[in-house]
């Protein structure tokens, strides 16, 4: 099912949780709602599920207005952050509960539960109670329960946040696999950029209730629309140097350097931020456009090392091959690749280049 939301707004008293949100969620895709805590992404999910009433705007499922429909009439599957499995029911009963409500015959219920158990790999756990399951198993049961009614789409609220690191990796691949196997349109909420980037078809980046960018993970990484998007994605975090434009060059604050990075004319004297992905720095690499930087620190990471460079008062992180010969305190030339180099207006955060 295709979901379309138009100018969706949610207010809690004076706070605006979601602000004028418009987007289309394509059928059969896995879409991540990504953003920092309190950005309104969970509220967005609850509005889609029908749990949180909408303040204004519209929600359309395949063109039908469902803005004011109660959750049970929307045919959505929702997986809660802490799963909310009914503690007094067995795994089987949990999965069957939505079907029981829908007055599906017992035979069909058991059949469907069997199918789902197979899909999420919990065949051996059907008689257990939720408190006898691990976090990952509970997650699987919650997904099975959410899928029982063959929902038009599946919503997952922070599906991996309650799991330990190893399980998290496993479950995120599982979510991807289950989504692929069932083909159900899936929207999941996360504050973890890696999670969003690794499994989703597209990512919606939100901040303060406002949609920032809606793009594929790669595009989001390669072409951030503003400095927030550039900041939020990537590990290690993107390097940022503030400075001004002077005679067609970038002058880092508090330095005499003039870095030649501009691809087009920018107005003179504007306060700008140069953002550089760590992998865009070629450390100890001389070229006509290279600039000097001071080696501040070195961190061993195995085959590569992370080097902290100082330009004026700013520290930059870049990668360097472990076979280098540089020492802390050296001055090294740094060149930039063309990918992963962005220029933002310091004040508005708008991308200039």
């Amino acid at each position, binding site marked *: 099912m295709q979901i379309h939301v138009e100018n969706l707004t949610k207010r809690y008293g004076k706070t605006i949780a979601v602000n004028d949100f418009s987007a289309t969620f394509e059928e059969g895709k896995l879409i991540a709602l990504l953003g920092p805590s309190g950005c309104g992404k969970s509220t967005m999910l609850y509005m889609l599920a029908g749990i949180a009433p909408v303040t204004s705007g519209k929600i359309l499922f395949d063109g039908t207005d469902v803005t004011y429909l109660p959750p049970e009439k929307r045919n959505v599957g929702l997986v809660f952050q802490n799963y*909310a499995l009914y503690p007094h*029911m067995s795994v089987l009963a949990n999965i069957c*509960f939505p079907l029981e409500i829908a007055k599906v015959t017992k035979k069909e219920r058991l059949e469907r539960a069997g199918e789902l158990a197979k899909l999420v790999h919990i065949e051996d756990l059907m008689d257990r*109670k939720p408190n006898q399951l691990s976090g990952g198993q509970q997650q699987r049961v919650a997904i099975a329960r959410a899928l029982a009614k063959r929902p038009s789409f599946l919503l997952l609220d922070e599906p991996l946040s309650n799991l330990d690191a190893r399980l998290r990796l496993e479950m995120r691949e599982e979510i991807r696999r289950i989504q692929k196997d069932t083909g159900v349109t899936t929207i999941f909420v996360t504050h973890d950029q890696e999670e969003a980037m690794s499994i989703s078809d597209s990512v919606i980046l939100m901040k303060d209730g406002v949609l920032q960018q809606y793009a594929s993970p790669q595009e989001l990484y390669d072409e951030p629309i503003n400095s927030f998007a550039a900041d939020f994605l990537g590990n290690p975090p993107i390097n940022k140097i503030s400075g001004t434009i002077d005679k067609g060059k970038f002058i880092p604050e508090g330095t005499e350097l003039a870095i030649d990075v501009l691809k087009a004319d920018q107005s003179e004297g504007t306060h700008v931020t140069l953002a550089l992905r760590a992998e865009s720095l070629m450390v100890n690499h001389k070229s006509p456009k290279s600039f000097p930087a001071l080696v501040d620190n070195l961190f061993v990471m195995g085959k590569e090392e992370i080097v902290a460079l100082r330009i004026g008062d700013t520290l930059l992180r870049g990668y360097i091959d472990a076979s280098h010969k540089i020492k802390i305190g050296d001055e090294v030339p740094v060149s930039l690749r063309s990918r992963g180099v962005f220029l933002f207006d310091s004040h508005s955060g708008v991308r200039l280049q």
Partner: protein
Amino acid sequence: MTKSPLKSLGEALLYLSPFLLGVIIFSLYPVANVFLISFKEGYRMATGAFQQYGLGNYTRVLADKDFILALKNTGLYVLFVVPISTALAILFAALLNQKIRFTGLFQTAYFLPMVTSGTAVGLAWKWMYNYDYGIFNYLLSLIGVSPINFLNDVRYGLLSLIIFGIWSMLPFTIILLLAGMQNIDPLYYTAAKVDGAKTTKTFFRITVPLLAPTIGLVLIINMINAFKVCSELFPLFNGKPGVAYSLYTVVFYIYDEFFLNRQLATAGAAAVILFFIVFVLTMVQLFIQRKWKHY
């Protein structure tokens, strides 16, 4: 510096001694004494003299038709009052747990009886049960039922007592159940809503099972309390166990045996019998509940 376990136990006992002393003097000793006296045949209260140890008091009590009547009355009282008042309390607690206006007002109204003196409430009920002027007979007259002599007719005495008992058991039960309900994570209700469950379904499939531990606790407390029914009789029936002594309850029987008949030993035997009935039923209930517990 480590103390020997014996020494630290002594110290703990020393700190506890004021409380322990009270418990020993006012609870443990009397209980043990009642047990002991109940086996003393021909016991004289004034001198403490007795003929021999034996089961004579028990055979006497069990042969007393007043005691059998008391057992029957108490049994019926428990049988009706405990399930009905618990069921009603679940219903009221569920209603009080809703997000409605004036919740505070309703809660106060329901809990008020708890802080009111039992005698005062009993007198109010006596008035409501009044043959000529009582509100019950007035209401019955509205639907064309001829007045009932609630308190002075042997046939209705127990019914009147049971209705009053159900009512007086409600507030405390509601408080406990409401506390239990408020401990249920609202998330389960949201989940049930998404699963499509309506109010009734949610109540029976989510609320009640999740409340089971509290319901079990409430049933046991109420059962024990209902077995001790006695003081409810005083205001309603002028300090008598109903019209023509038809409403003897076990505790009332013990009371009369002791204070009126000065038969400490038979009163003790009756008390021990009551204790065993309550004890066995509580055990049975705990056993059932262990199987009943879902998580």
